[in-house]
């Protein structure tokens, strides 16, 4: 546990001292601020569904920028060799990077709570879908970060890691589209693999255990594969 804490502190420090995190946060908040103002003035409806959908799309594009350096940079600069020849388990290294990156992403998401506060100040929002929406975003972030780490762990090029992550996220997003071409039971499998299929109900306020299970299972699988891949040397 102590090793995990030490590694987490190092990763969080690296994340917070890099300009990448601040740039991503700035772009994220700029685009969302614009959308929030626009939808609020046009629709005059006190809900955050549009914002949640936009956060879903933006995170698919921006999370890879945060995860791409995690392992690829360590591999390129050969510090991974240094790290993995100290008495630490591969899983601790993976979990520390996951926790630090997820903290940053959720921290950026948390800044959008100001929109909920504005809605509460000037309207009467339904809080159920807002709570459920933030839960969905947290789970979505967990999956994206875990898959992003997996992609970063298989290459020493940050650009390749980011491209692979975006590709994987888009495949997961549109996985249900391919179901029309598949025979049963593969069509059902493709539908259940879809990222948006598990995200949408929660944003509308319907929280199902199956949707939570999807995000948790997929995140754990990606983290396990990352640790397993690191151990295959």
């Amino acid at each position, binding site marked *: 546990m102590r090793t995990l804490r030490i*590694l987490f502190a190092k990763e969080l*420090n690296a994340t917070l001292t890099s300009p990448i995190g601040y740039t991503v946060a700035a772009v994220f908040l700029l685009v969302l601020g614009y959308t929030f103002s626009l939808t609020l003035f046009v629709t005059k409806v006190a809900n955050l569904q549009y914002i949640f959908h936009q956060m879903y799309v933006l995170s698919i594009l921006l999370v890879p920028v945060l995860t791409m350096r995690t392992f690829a940079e360590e591999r390129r600069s050969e510090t991974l060799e240094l790290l*993995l*020849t*100290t*008495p630490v388990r591969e899983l601790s290294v993976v979990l520390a990077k996951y926790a630090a990156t997820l903290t940053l992403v959720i921290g950026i998401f948390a800044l959008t709570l100001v929109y909920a506060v504005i809605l509460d100040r000037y309207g009467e929002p339904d809080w159920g879908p807002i709570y459920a929406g933030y839960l969905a975003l947290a789970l979505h972030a967990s999956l994206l970060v875990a898959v992003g780490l997996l992609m970063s762990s298989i290459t020493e090029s940050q650009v390749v890691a980011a491209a692979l992550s975006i590709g994987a996220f888009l495949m997961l997003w549109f996985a249900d589209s391919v179901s029309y071409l598949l025979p049963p039971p593969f069509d059902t499998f493709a539908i259940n693999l879809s990222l948006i299929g598990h995200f949408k109900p929660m944003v509308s306020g319907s929280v199902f255990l199956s949707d939570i299970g999807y995000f948790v299972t997929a995140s754990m699988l990606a983290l396990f594969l990352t640790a397993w891949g690191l151990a295959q*040397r």
Partner: protein
Amino acid sequence: MMISSIDAAPPDDAPARATDAPAISAVSVSKRYGSVTALDRLTLDIRCGEVFGLLGPNGSGKTTFMRLLAGYLLPSAGRLTVAGLDTVCDSLAVRRRIGYVPESAPLYRQMRVGEFLAFMARLRGLPERAVAAAVERVVDQLALGAVVDKPTRALSRGYRQRAALAQALIHDPDILILDEPTNGLDPRQIIEMRELIRSFAGRHTVLMSSHILSEVEKTSDRVAVLLNGRLLGVRAMADTPDLEGWFLSLT
């Protein structure tokens, strides 16, 4: 000297072993990458407290052997023990007992030297109360005082090499594994590094690699020659007045 007091090492994870056991023992160790054999049935014993030199051209398998010892790579065949512990089955315990400096002397660029050494001390399991003293000890030992507050990215090659060596010494390991420790250093720095390595003899078992004959000649008690992943010979330096001639006769 073998398995001296290491704050980091929990006493209960080391199986009982004879004190005269070799510090490092390789029995028919091979490492293959697909069809490429990087190390071919290497059998070698390295005694406690000696400075052992691995000599060979680039691509001869020196780095692969060191990575296997450090637990970074897993052998494809054979058995490798460090301080009596199997590098595969007791990987974490082995890593507690060694200090390893990779060839490129990698450091975390965003950290300051002192911060980096403290981080490595914690990772190697030193208790929090011992970290500051350990950092101070290696800073003194390697004359890093002038750069301890500098970011590692601002260090010269010589200081980088010393900082990398300092992290390997931070937990006072029994065994030091140094991959090309004089690589990229200027003549004065090479002499300093050589003296430093010699000063470890007796207190630490040192395995160092080089492709420069004179480096191995001036620092090692014994030397092994590797070529294309195969061990060609092992000699005590005291019995080898003409290292160059011996090397040429083997290769």
